Each structure stands twice: as structure tokens, then as C-alpha cells.
């Protein structure tokens, strides 16, 4: 009833190509945007900002970047965290070498560096495929983390080997560092995420998106219909790594405040891969759903016993949490291997014909 698409006719191809051919989708998105831009920031507690809102957005963005590469262009990568690291270190070097630079500009530029490194490590994709490529991306993962550790210039020869985000202002407001408030940081993250999501939607629904999907679905056929596989794959690596790099810069500058090299190690890569897969490969929406589940669930599981007034041992809760996340991953893969986005698509299909299913 709410999702009736009947009566909404398109009179031009242009209208049919609009972002939301069904009016209700646009309304739903508007509602979510109001929630994200107005309601959440006004009502969220510090705890909610720091453990739910900001990390969910950043993880979604990282997963979006990975999804471009893996979900759209079909190149499995296990090195996401390392490219996040490249973004974070690039951002750190930029703001410390050029303190006049606005941190927001630095964050957006930092993706350029990760894109460059991404293309270099994407070159093997021209020759190897599938799991072999996935393992090859681990070479980037391990090598880059090692480099973050050994190349003291990257962390300004800091004795601890870690980077510490300085207090930086943009338009007279502290945007990064401990002086920045969570609300400001949230808005910066939200703005960047909104912008990049919109860009990704445009890219994936147009020519580039079709080139990537063709490469993913059947690479030789793609080449035989005129797609330059090298450009397609390396382009996907570049765009993906750009987004991942920006996510990495946000991760450290807008959220964590400090970073050690091993922060960008394999577990983070896997975490982002989980989000992308549980959310749904080849879907933009899925990244958000996946991040809400993977980031939000442990927080809720952690708070739940307390809310229920149960006295639990925090270590036991943590072990149970690990077990539950593991079991949930298997559960979701069995129930809906195409992820939460597909689940939503099915629900939506039902809603469109509700209450008159044939």
C-alpha cells in the first residue's frame, strides 16, 4: 500500500533513469537523511556518537570502497585495511607538513595517495584471478603495515611509532584532535560519506558501473565487446582505494585520534569484508546495513546484559560476542548469501504488490 508503484508511469527514458523511479524510495531516503542530518545529532549521546554513529558511517564508507572493487568489479581484496592506512598516514603527513591545510581538504586529498598505491598493487589483477588475487592483496596488506612500522618519516620519527592527530581548525571550529566535539566530527564524516555515496551511486549506475560489472561477470566477454580490462580493473582499484583511503583518514582523524601501524592489520580488512558481504556484494545500500549489523551488534551485545540487570563477567561476554558474530556470519550466509541488501529488495518487492499479491 505504501509502496504502490502502480500509476507511476515514465514518459521519457530520462525519467526512467532517474535515481529513484519509485516515489516512495525517494521519500524513504529523505526520511533517512533527515534522521542522519537532524535527528541523530540532536539526540545522540557522546557514547552513541563514539561507538555507533561515527564508526558505522566510517566503516560503511570503507566497505563501500571495497564493494566497488569486489562487489562491482569482481576483484576480491583482503588488503583494505592497508589502503586505509595509506590514507591515514598520507593525511597525517599532509597536515603536519602543511599545517595551514584544512583537515577536510587533507582528508579528501589523502585518498589520492591510496588510489595511487592501490593501482600499483592492482597490477597483478591483470594476470591473476580469484583467490590467487585475494592472497596477492595480502602482500599489500602485510608489506604496507610493515612499512608503516619501519618508515619513521611516516610518523614524524615519533618515539612510540604511533601517529597522534593534532588539533586542527576549519572555519574557526576544531575539526580534528581532542578539542573537536563529537558533533562536529560527526557532521564532517556524514558530509564526506554522503558526497562519496552519491558519487558511487552515479558511477555504478552508468557506463563505468556497467564496465565494472561486465568485467566481474565475464571478463573475456567484456574484453571482446570492447572493454579495456586493464583500464577497467585498475580504474576500479583506483576508485576503490580512493574511497578506502578517505575512509582511513576519517577513521583516524575523525574518530580514533591516534593510530599504531598494527591498527591497519588483517583483522580490520576482514571486518570490512564482512560488512560488505553481509550487507551484500554489488550493492550500495548493503554497506550501511552491514556496518550497522557488524559495528552495532557487538555494542548492543555488550550493553544488553547490563540493561537486563544481569551480572556478567566481561571476558565471558566478549568470548560469547566473538562466538555470536561468527555464528551470525554463517547464519546470514545460509539464509541470504546475497546479503541484507537482497533481503531488503525482497521485502520491497513484497511491499510493492502488497496488499494484493498475485
Amino acid at each position, binding site marked *: 500500500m505504501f509502496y504502490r508503484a502502480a500509476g507511476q508511469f515514465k514518459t*521519457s*527514458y*530520462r525519467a526512467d*533513469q532517474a535515481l529513484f523511479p519509485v516515489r516512495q524510495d525517494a521519500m524513504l531516503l529523505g526520511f533517512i537523511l533527515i534522521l542522519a542530518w537532524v535527528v541523530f545529532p540532536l539526540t545522540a549521546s557522546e557514547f552513541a556518537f563514539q561507538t555507533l554513529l561515527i564508526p558505522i558511517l566510517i566503516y560503511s564508507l570503507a566497505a563501500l570502497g571495497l564493494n566497488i572493487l569486489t562487489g562491482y568489479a569482481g576483484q576480491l581484496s583482503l588488503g583494505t585495511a592497508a589502503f586505509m592506512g595509506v590514507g591515514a598516514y598520507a593525511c597525517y603527513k599532509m597536515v603536519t607538513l602543511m599545517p595551514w591545510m584544512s583537515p577536510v581538504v587533507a582528508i579528501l586529498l589523502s585518498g589520492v595517495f591510496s588510489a595511487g598505491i592501490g593501482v600499483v598493487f592492482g597490477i597483478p589483477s591483470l594476470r591473476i584471478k580469484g583467490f590467487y588475487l585475494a592472497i596477492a592483496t595480502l602482500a599489500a596488506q602485510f608489506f604496507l603495515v610493515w612499512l608503516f612500522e619501519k618508515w619513521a618519516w611516516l610518523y614524524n620519527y615519533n618515539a612510540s611509532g604511533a601517529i597522534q592527530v593534532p588539533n586542527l581548525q576549519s572555519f574557526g571550529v576544531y575539526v580534528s584532535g581532542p578539542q573537536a566535539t563529537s558533533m562536529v566530527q560527526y557532521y564532517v564524516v556524514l558530509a564526506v560519506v554522503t558526497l562519496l555515496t552519491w*558519487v558511487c551511486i*552515479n*558511477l555504478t549506475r*552508468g*557506463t*563505468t558501473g*556497467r*564496465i565494472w*560489472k*561486465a568485467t*566481474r*561477470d*565475464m571478463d*573475456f*566477454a*567484456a*574484453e*571482446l*565487446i*570492447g*572493454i*579495456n*580490462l586493464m583500464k577497467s580493473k585498475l*580504474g576500479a582499484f583506483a576508485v576503490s582505494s580512493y574511497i578506502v583511503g578517505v575512509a582511513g583518514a576519517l577513521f583516524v582523524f575523525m574518530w580514533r585520534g591516534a593510530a599504531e601501524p598494527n591498527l591497519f592489520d588483517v583483522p580490520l580488512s576482514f571486518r570490512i569484508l564482512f560488512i560488505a558481504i553481509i550487507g551484500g556484494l*554489488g550493492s550500495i545500500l548493503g554497506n550501511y546495513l552491514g556496518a550497522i549489523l557488524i559495528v552495532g551488534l557487538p555494542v548492543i551485545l555488550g550493553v544488553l546484559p547490563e540493561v537486563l540487570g544481569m551480572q556478567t563477567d566481561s571476558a565471558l561476554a566478549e568470548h560469547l560476542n566473538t562466538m555470536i558474530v561468527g555464528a551470525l556470519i554463517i547464519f546470514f550466509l545460509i539464509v541470504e548469501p546475497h546479503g541484507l541488501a537482497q533481503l531488503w529488495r525482497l521485502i520491497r518487492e513484497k511491499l510493492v504488490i502488497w496488499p494484493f499479491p498475485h
Partner: protein
Amino acid sequence: MLDATEGHTTADGRKIGPVVMEMKNITLRFGGVVAIENISFDIREGEIRAIIGPNGAGKSSMLNVVSGFYTPQEGEVWFRGQPRPPMKPYQVARQGIARTFQNIALFEGMTVLDNVMTGRLTHMKAGLFSQALWKGRAEAEETANREIAERVIDFLEIQAIRKTPVSRLPYGLKKRVELARALAAEPKLLLLDEPMAGMNVEEKEDMSRFILDVNDEFGTTIALIEHDMGVVMDLSDRVVVMDYGKKIGDGTPDEVRNNQEVIDAYLGVQH
């Protein structure tokens, strides 16, 4: 070179032009196995040219050489009067050569419409920035090419399934969608690798009609591989016959039908 520049008109009134593609002494080997041995033939503009032969004769390999998917060890491919330098398959496609595949090679994760739109890729030039913003050239191109794609969809009568994911389609329709994708490219030369493999009689008739219509209405040059002799003889203007990587016959369907070597090959007579 015999009538390389002139053309003629067929009995049913179609115009056959000069030679567009010529294979000269092609030899292709995989390791020690010779897939194609010293084969030459030509394709004229506007004609339907068939390549036939028993299994393992090297027909698909020949098509792959034309597409640039395989690079022959010896011989040259001449296209539009010039020898073609070694090219990547996508460069060949951009010269206006489109094809379909023996085992359907559609993009299963995309809708029919998107699959057909991929056929238009060689005609789309918008930059990444314009695409990212969905403004200017990107948006205009999208609409213009959509119209062309829709015309192909109309022509092949697959309007009803345009937003269906390809993976949900039955075999026969998939073959048709694949043809649509190739046609959307508006190719100068269309290569069809067993377009009727695995089809029942009605589907074969439909497909034959489409092939003839394509040739007729757009004047597209077509080279096709087919197993079914009957279909080939009805459709094509000229036929190349291959066996064990060698050319054993070339000519009009009638000439080929009466060629003793061809008959032997098909009946399995020992030489």
C-alpha cells in the same frame, strides 16, 4: 586480387559489397597442437558468410582469431584493405567487430537492458568526473544510447524482459539477448558463434529470421559458425568448410554441397 573493390547484387536484391576482411594464410598452434593450418578466406561487405565443419575443426579458433582473442603464429588479418597490426580484443571490438559466443557469455549479474547497454560502451565517451556527478555529457549520453538500445530491444522483441536479471532467463531468450548486445554496438562486422546451438526448431526459425532481418535492414556483414548444415545452406551467401584445422571447401552453398571432400568429411569417410 579478384574483384576486391567491386560488388554485386544477389538474386533476392541484397547488395554485396567489396571485401571487408581477409584472412591470409592463418596458422594457429597451441603448443604442439595445430588448431588452424594455413587458412585463407575473405568476407565481403553485406554478405552472410558461414564457417562450417565437424567438431574440433577449428571454427571457433578461427573466430577467435578474427576477434583478436587469439594471435596466430603465422598469417595476416586484413581489415578494410589494410593489414591489421596485433591487437587486443577490445581494440578489435572498437573497430566495429561485435560477436556472440558458443556458450552464452552474458553478464549474469545485470539486467537485460544493462547487458544491451554494454553493447553501446564503445560509443560512450563521457569522462569519469562527468559520470560521478551524473551531469552534462554523461547524462546526455546515457539518454541517447538508451534510445538506441531500446530500438534493438524492440527489433528483437524482448521489451517485456528488459528489466529482468539475465540469470532468470531461459536459454533461448539468453541467446537473443546476446544478439541484442552485439547489435547494440552497431557493428560493421557481426560474428555469430553457433547462434542456434541447443535450440528447438521454432527457436531456430526465429533466430534465422532475426539474422536475415539484421542483414537486410541494417546491411550488417555477418560471419557465423553453425553446425546445422540445413540452416547454414538456407542463410548464407558463401560458406567456408573446415576440417582438422584445414580449409576443405569454399563457395556458395550449392558449390559446397557438391564438393566431394566436404561430403566425405561430414559423412566421416576415411581418406
